[in-house]
């Protein structure tokens, strides 16, 4: 069977190089990956980067001779961060392109909508969504969450708030599933430790001002506000809080922060805003490979896209699992190996080639990914390390790791 790269994968030099290597492939049937990412819609900040990371990682795997001799073929689609187009796109990927796995669905609504389809077709789904139901419906372990779910976000937030010595936190949350769950788990963790939340509020996006929302929360005189939202609303809220003279600090997730926030707010307003997020293993080899590929494809730093690193890791862990399961393994058998190649008590590996060699040598491996150590919990959700960052004099600086 001839393996060909689809035109979409030709974007970017890496892919081109990879296709040259891929051309003389022999023997095994290609393993087809659907990259279903939020290229447009609310997730557009990350979608393109995720897609290109997937393509780059697949090229890396193919350059190392494929997974168990199988070339990876990537078919890219735009899920539009919306359930209905995503369902149609997934249908196309599954039925027309006959993909074996769908990688990189971002929002919970998209993952929830396509999960029944992937489960019914025995297709592996790797996502960055946090809805709890995603994990409860995952009886056959075909689905893997690469973004530390709301539970971990909430705990990390609580740990940071405690460590910073705050005693009167308030909550502000964007009205969607992910954001509400994040602050919900924060509240749970905080209250379990005997703390008290002084005010909580869910706001609607797309307002021209959040002044009355802020007024309500500030009236409770919090010393810190746990704000769970996205970049545009976070920008406006932080600016207005500053203008209103709020003294409370803010703690926000990293997907609503980054250089774009700094650029929008400037050094004065951003000063002291706390950011929590999973730490990619920046010093690690996997991150360096990912970062270089990301830079090449998008001309910006891979550090700006937490989901890019996760998408990259999806491909590598999937490929390692295929490698371990063998060329003739079906998806259920492959999925079973995901945990085996990623979780502790194996030799630490940081790239596909390294892992492949170790597996060939008959060793147990533990893939340490670009996005984190990639240790999956009992639900199939990757547990990452969190760190606290802050803006200081116009610089984004890492403060310390969170436990």
């Amino acid at each position: 069977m001839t393996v060909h790269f689809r035109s979409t994968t030709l974007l970017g030099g890496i892919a081109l190089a990879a296709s040259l290597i891929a051309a003389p492939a022999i023997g095994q049937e290609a393993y087809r990956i659907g990259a279903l990412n939020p290229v447009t819609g609310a997730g557009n900040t990350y979608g393109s980067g995720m897609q290109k990371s997937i393509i780059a990682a697949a090229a890396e795997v193919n350059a190392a001779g494929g997974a168990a001799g199988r070339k990876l073929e990537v078919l890219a689609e735009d899920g539009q961060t919306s359930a209905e187009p995503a369902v149609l796109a997934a249908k196309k990927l599954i039925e027309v392109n006959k993909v074996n796995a769908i990688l990189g669905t971002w929002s919970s609504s998209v993952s929830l909508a396509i999960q029944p389809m992937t489960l019914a077709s025995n297709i592996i789904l790797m996502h960055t969504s946090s809805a709890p139901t995603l994990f409860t419906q995952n009886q056959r372990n075909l689905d893997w969450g690469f973004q530390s779910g709301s539970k971990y976000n909430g705990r990390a937030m609580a740990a940071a708030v405690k460590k910073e010595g705050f005693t009167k936190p308030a909550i502000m949350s964007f009205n969607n599933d992910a954001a509400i769950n994040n602050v919900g788990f924060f509240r749970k963790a905080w209250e379990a430790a005997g703390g008290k939340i002084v005010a909580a509020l869910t706001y609607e996006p797309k307002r021209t001002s959040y002044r009355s929302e802020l007024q309500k929360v500030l009236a409770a005189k919090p010393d810190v506000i746990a704000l769970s939202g996205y970049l545009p609303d976070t920008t406006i809220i932080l600016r207005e809080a500053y203008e209103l003279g709020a003294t409370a600090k803010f703690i926000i997730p990293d997907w609503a922060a980054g250089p774009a926030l700094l650029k929008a707010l400037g050094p004065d307003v951003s000063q002291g805003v706390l950011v929590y997020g999973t730490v990619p293993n920046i010093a690690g080899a996997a991150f360096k490979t990912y970062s270089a590929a990301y830079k090449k494809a998008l001309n910006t730093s891979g550090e700006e896209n937490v989901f890019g690193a996760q998408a990259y890791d999806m491909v590598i862990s999937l490929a390692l699992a295929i490698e371990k399961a063998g060329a003739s393994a079906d998806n259920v058998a492959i999925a079973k190996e995901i945990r085996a190649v990623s979780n502790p008590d194996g030799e630490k590996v940081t790239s596909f080639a390294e892992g492949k060699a170790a597996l060939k040598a008959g060793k147990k491996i533990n893939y340490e990914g670009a996005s984190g150590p990639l240790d999956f919990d009992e639900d199939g959700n990757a547990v990452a390390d969190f760190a606290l960052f802050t803006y200081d004099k116009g610089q984004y600086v890492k403060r310390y790791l969170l436990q």
Partner: protein
Amino acid sequence: MLPYLVTIAIMIGIYGLLTLGLNLQYGYTGLINFGHVAFFAIGAYTSALISLAGYPIALGMAAGTVLAFLAAYPLGLLCLRLRADYLAIVTLSFSEIIRTVLISEEWLTEGTQGLPGIPKPFSSLSQGNADLAYLALVATAMLVAILLMWRLSHSPFGRLIRAVRDDEDAVRAVGKDPAQLKIKTLMLGAALAGLAGAFYAHYVGYISPDQFLPLVTFYAWIALIMGGAGTITGAIVGSSLLLFILEGSRFLRDVVPFVSEVQMASLRLAVIGLGLVLFMLYRPQGLIPDRSQS
């Protein structure tokens, strides 16, 4: 390929039902309803909630249709008092109110979290066959809707609808109440939208408030305008064309590699936008013209 086409066909059927409903309201009666998605949402949520509570799917679908039918009544009362252009905005507002309710009333709708795991009919069949059976069901519903529309338009009721569209005051002068007629067509159109919503919920399997943005209403309008208002076939041709534009771009991108995914999304919207303008300018009657209006 076939299962994908089946999915597309199902979506065409769902949008077709939605558009047929709008056709009855606008194409036949001239009501400018820009809140169609409200009834779609009511149908979807009602059916989903009832079947998630363990009742039969058929009961859910029937309830969704009936509730959408009834929900149109108060809106219908408003229609009678308002100018056409006001009505457009009021109905649009109505659909946003409904969406806000879906977001806020978490005890019922689970809010922004949405409703996952909505049961699919024919789950005992294999996935491919279940989809085929579903398509047959949607097609049957479509056929029934078409027959119903045909019966309506070729009846004294249809005659009266056309009379109302020509001259409301003259209708009143012969002792008929145009208001009652408008309410009825609004309710019937809403019922079709509700049924479409029910089909949608059970097919997609997951619904949340942000699937019921005004964009859905606009899609129905686009299908209606492109297909041709006032004709039964127009609604189906229009919704097929709509899906063709929305889905075709996926395949187009395989052929045009230099356009990025982001740009493709923009182009999709551009094609729809430009298409609407050009249709209005050069072919306002749509692809399938309504012969009685020429």
